[in-house]
């Protein structure tokens, strides 16, 4: 079966906005994702060095009596994002293993840069208390001043660095 086309971006945006609005109406808060990724990271680190993680000044907020690091709204939401992504990709005939890169970039380069960018983002998302989903999208819709500052900064940062990694995407 041929791939189904992507949705018109405006329509996709409206539907995404309705999902976000639904989350606000039901739960009173919006979407997110980096928080869950951090929790998974803390969970993994906890398997290796439980004491270090529990006493860490930042991660200690995830631990305590009656708390489980993975018992969190965002963790379940991101589980849903994964399942929704699988369903979406499969029903559109797009579910297959592969590596996204420009024609001139090698696989090793691409994977290395993906990790480097990921490390930057993981650090930045914790510093800013959220990522494009939790801050820009959710905080933007809720008209938080800091989230709008964040959003503008994301675009600025992206445009500043983009010329340096042009090779990766051509």
């Amino acid at each position, binding site marked *: *079966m041929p791939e189904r086309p992507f949705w018109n971006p405006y329509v996709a945006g409206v539907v995404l906005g309705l999902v976000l609005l639904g989350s606000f109406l039901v739960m009173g808060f919006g979407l997110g994702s980096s928080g869950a990724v951090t929790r998974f990271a803390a969970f993994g680190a906890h398997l290796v060095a439980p004491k270090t993680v529990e006493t860490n000044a930042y991660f200690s907020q995830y631990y305590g009596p009656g708390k489980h690091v993975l*018992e969190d709204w965002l963790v*379940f939401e991101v*589980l*849903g994002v994964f*399942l929704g992504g*699988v*369903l979406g990709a*499969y*029903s559109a*005939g797009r*579910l*297959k293993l592969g590596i996204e890169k420009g024609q001139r970039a090698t696989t090793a380069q691409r994977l290395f840069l993906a990790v480097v960018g990921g490390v930057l983002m993981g650090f930045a998302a914790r510093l800013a208390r959220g990522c494009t989903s939790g801050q820009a999208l959710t905080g933007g819709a809720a008209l938080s001043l800091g989230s709008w500052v964040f959003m503008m900064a994301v675009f600025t940062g992206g445009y500043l660095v983009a010329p340096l990694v042009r090779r990766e995407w051509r």
Partner: protein
Amino acid sequence: MTPQFLETVTTRANAQIDPSLHVWGFEITIYLFLGGIVAGIFILAAALELVSGARPLSRFLRPVPFAALALLSVGMLALWLDLEHRLWAWRFYAVFRPTSPMSWGAWILWLVYPVGLAWGLGSLGSEERGVLRRWVPGVLRSAFEGILAFADKRRRSILVAAVLVGTSLGLYTGLLLGTMPSRLAWNSAVLGPLFLASGVSTGAATLLLLRLDDAERKTLVRWDAIAIGVELVLIVLLFLGWATSGEAGRFAAHSFLGGPYTAVFWSLVVVMGLLVPLAMEFLESRRHLRFVVIVPVLILAGGLALRWILLAAGQASSFRLLP
């Protein structure tokens, strides 16, 4: 009889003996999970041959009975590790107590091995038999030939026996929990069929991970979808049974409908392990999409979660907690 007294006589669970019944850990989960898979493999792989009337088309399906027995052995190892008095495990086989579900289980487990061996030997092609013949020591040669001849002659009966043994094994994994009335969340007769259906589904998922012939794959996907559908119905029945069985049942149901097991049960078991794979199997047949490995992986994860959660929820639900 007061709830406390009932607990004391049936499970020793009172403050003086066992403060709580958190005694079944990951070992039992693994055993129930592998037991279910083996039951499913026995039922499905044997039924596949009974329906088509021909030996397995794909090379990978032929050694499956042996693989199933190996899986079951791993499960039984987990079960044995869970025992308090490991050296006395043989005593299970010194008696047969018709009133004890554990005794039934112990004997069913042993019944699986001869049936599986006979079925597996019969499935082998002439080439593989030749290899085996070279390995069998001379003294046992005639016995080996006798078994092979028997396995070929009685092929149909052996396949039927495999289906029956698989069904009993699958039912037993659930009934083991279901017969313990003092654990509120296990106190349901639906648990046996539910674990059987889940076993069939996880067994199908395991088989789908192998490189199968297209026709076999199609049949298995269809059967798997049916098993998942049955499982969903049984989950509804489980809740209906609880809702109509008085305070204890409602208490058990509450832990899945608003209580601490709500999110994990509905998210991991129902959405991730049943609804999403079912939707993908439906899409696969409707839109002629490629088969993808993630479907069986999700089903297996969901099956493991089902057993893990029911095991934990059951041990956490006791009469003493009733309001």
